[in-house]
């Protein structure tokens, strides 16, 4: 493990990377379970509305990314908040990252177990996923950000398979009614926050400022990424509505994957297994990035910034996360009721972090009179 390279900054990445980072960080575990919680066709409008709200968050995010402080990384945050507060916020951030990591990894491991390895323990799958994520993360932030391109090219095409659900005999327009809500149920609020939480992820870009080449087009690229996510969410939701119908949608825990089980060709009967394997590219990318962020945040929280980053340190934090995740798996995830609690917790945590992180940063920026510097 080339330890000195973990947080090195040799090159910066342009808007395309920012766009893909936004898109791929929004296409994690939640989009696979989303239709079974949204259920009603009129939630299409909520998907779009929250997408627009997400756009506002990205606007705030781009304001931060355009400042000189953001490209200074840790020192920029210290200038903005002061060292003590940065350490405290990093400590809080560790729990947010751990929660997100737990939900996306355990959720995906459970899917693999359900559809591919019914007799395999999910801890074993988590171990292997972490092993490979650790390898990707050991290449450093720079290469992990670059890995988003590979992750995108290996996963984005899968959505095109679902176009078959838009044609008769599966597709019937009546499945998309009612498009206007007649009443607003309490469960719809959960669906609303789930959508908001699903759009979360790009707030972690605030920590990637040193590696992003920002200019006046940055917001445009972030918007493209977000818009692509909106299209993907709406597309998959409509496809699942057309396939299951809103009455039956809530009965399927993983509607998207259940739909994919019907794809066949003369060589393979279960294309969904191949698709799940490809989806791993996105999971490994996101988990690797979060592992690096966790390691970086733990260094700040425990006041170890003066010491150089090391492979051993990363390995140790990965080990801690793995132990934590096994505990979460045994104590929460394996029991359905407690899993629901954990999911709700992540829905709230994701919504809060996506809503508050850019907002607080911009408010403090305004208060301290920090201005954007990029003009090209």
């Amino acid at each position, binding site marked *: 493990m080339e330890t000195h390279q973990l947080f090195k900054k040799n*090159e910066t*990445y342009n808007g*395309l990377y920012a766009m893909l980072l936004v898109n791929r960080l929004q296409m994690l575990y939640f989009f696979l379970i989303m239709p079974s919680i949204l259920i009603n066709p009129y939630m299409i409008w909520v998907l779009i509305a929250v997408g627009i709200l997400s756009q506002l968050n990205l606007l705030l995010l781009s304001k931060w990314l355009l400042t000189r402080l953001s490209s200074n990384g840790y020192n920029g945050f210290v200038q903005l908040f002061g060292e003590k507060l940065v350490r405290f916020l990093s400590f809080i951030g560790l729990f947010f990252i751990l929660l997100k990591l737990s939900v996306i990894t355990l959720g995906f491991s459970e899917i*693999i177990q359900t559809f*591919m*390895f019914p007799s395999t323990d999910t801890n074993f*799958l988590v171990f*292997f*996923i972490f092993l*490979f994520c650790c*390898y*990707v993360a050991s*290449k*450093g932030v720079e*290469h992990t950000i*670059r*890995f988003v*391109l*590979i992750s995108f*090219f290996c996963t984005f095409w899968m959505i095109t398979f679902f176009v078959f659900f838009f044609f008769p005999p599966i597709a019937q327009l009546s499945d998309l009614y009612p498009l206007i809500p007649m009443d607003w149920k309490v469960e719809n609020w959960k669906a609303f926050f789930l959508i908001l939480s699903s759009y979360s992820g790009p707030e972690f870009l605030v920590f990637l400022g040193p590696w992003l080449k920002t200019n006046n087009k940055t917001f445009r690229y972030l918007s493209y990424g977000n818009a692509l996510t909106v299209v993907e969410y709406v597309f998959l939701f409509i496809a699942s509505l057309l396939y299951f119908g809103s009455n039956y949608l809530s009965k399927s825990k993983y509607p998207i994957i259940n739909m994919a089980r019907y794809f066949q060709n*003369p*060589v*393979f*009967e*279960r294309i969904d*297994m*191949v698709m*799940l*394997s*490809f989806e*791993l*590219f996105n999971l*490994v990318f996101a988990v690797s990035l979060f592992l690096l962020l966790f390691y970086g945040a733990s260094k700040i929280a425990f006041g170890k910034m003066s010491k150089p980053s090391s492979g051993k340190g990363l390995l140790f934090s990965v080990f801690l996360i793995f132990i934590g995740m096994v505990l979460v798996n045994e104590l929460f995830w394996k029991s359905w009721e407690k899993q629901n609690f954990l999911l709700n917790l992540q829905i709230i945590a994701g919504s809060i972090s996506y809503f508050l992180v850019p907002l607080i940063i911009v408010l403090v920026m305004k208060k301290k009179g920090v201005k954007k510097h990029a003009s090209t």
Partner: protein
Amino acid sequence: MEKKQIESKLVTQSIAESELSIEALKKILVQMDDAEFVEIDISDIRKIHLVYIRTLIDQEKLNESIIKPLTSCSKPSIQDCIVNSSIIPIPTFIEAKKQLFSGSILLFDSSQNLWLAVPLKNPIGRAIESSETETILFGAKDSFSEQVEQNITLIRRRLPIHELKAEKFTVGSLSETSVVLMYIEGLTNPDFVSTVKEKISEINFDLFFDSSQVAAFLEEHQNSIFPQFQQTDRPDVVTYSLELGKITLLVDNTPFALVAPITFFHLFQSPEDYINRWVVASFLRIIRYVSFILSVTLIPFYVALTTHHYQMIPIQTLLVLVDSRSKLPFTPFWEAFIMLIFIEIIKEASLRMPTKTGQTLGVIGGIVIGQAAVEAGFASNVLIVMVGISTIASFLIPNYLMTKANSLIQLMLLIFSSLLGIIGIALGIIAILAHLNSLSSIKQPYFSPVSPFFRKDWIDLFIRGPLVKMMERPEHLKPLKLKRYKTRR
């Protein structure tokens, strides 16, 4: 031990510092049967001493260019007598030694106390032949030989421009191997040139007999299975690479030039790509990529399906597979592992065996490994077919070093597939892609133009676009001149 080392150091130092004389040369050339000391009497009072290594010089030329002119010449100066060869004055003992062992004849005019060297290198070596490692149907047939000067000629004939620079370096304390760095000034990014020069200057090793050894000292990722320098013996490939903005290293005594920076995708490009029509060339290139993917994943996929995912196989195929595997004593992993190791043994043996015994290998490989293994119940018919396809597919990659890496990737994926089925294969591929993504060739990303992304360079990536549309050089090579055409005034 230390005392001995100091003594030998002192002896070497004293020889290096000793004054240039016949006696001093005799001292270092002692016990060398091919060392010659010849005296030519020009007149009663004037003698010319010739010192040379017989095996290193062209003896026919010695007579023609030196001995005859000297004996028949009445002029006082040697330089005036020898007119057909270049003459280098020798100021020091070290320089004399260097010239002597590089195939020069040392001349000592005792009357003037003057030392001179005349290069008369033995031209022994292969003629220009066609390449055996990168064969093509159409296009130029010539290939490099072991003589670096000849190799430079082959390149210069294709690029007759003054911007084509050839800088010479010497590496290897014992072999004193010449390494020639070639690049097009004003086109190749100067960072590449300076990086390579810096790395060459840092080389500290005694013997180099192949360019791959030089590459080992220049590569940034020693533990990777992927080559970071392209080795080629084709002058047309080198010329095309230079034209794109790459650098080339020619190493004396080896026909393989080193080209850098390269990307993973360059290893899939063949010189014929630029000779065939673009649609055909693109199709063939895609076939090459597909073959690579097949060669590394087909057998792991077989193991994954037969071990973990029977439900993925259509019922008709499943019946064939079950029938084929019903009498086998091994698990799919061991069955595939044993077959792959056998194939590797056959591949390696076919390289080492003389051509005439190659047929025997074909028969043994084909009958014993194929038919007999199935009849004996060691392998299934289906696996034999898959091994055959993947082995043939692996040979479609034009770069031989990449073909070697193929086998290791295949074995790695095989292990992962036996553990975690297609999830294991996916994780293995992720690891390979992450590794490729982090590699570099003379500090340039190895996985560009995919990551980092260069949109315009995709015209010559998975397909080979029409030449008339490829009016710009690849951006990821950062050439100083991006456009390939002259701008009209």
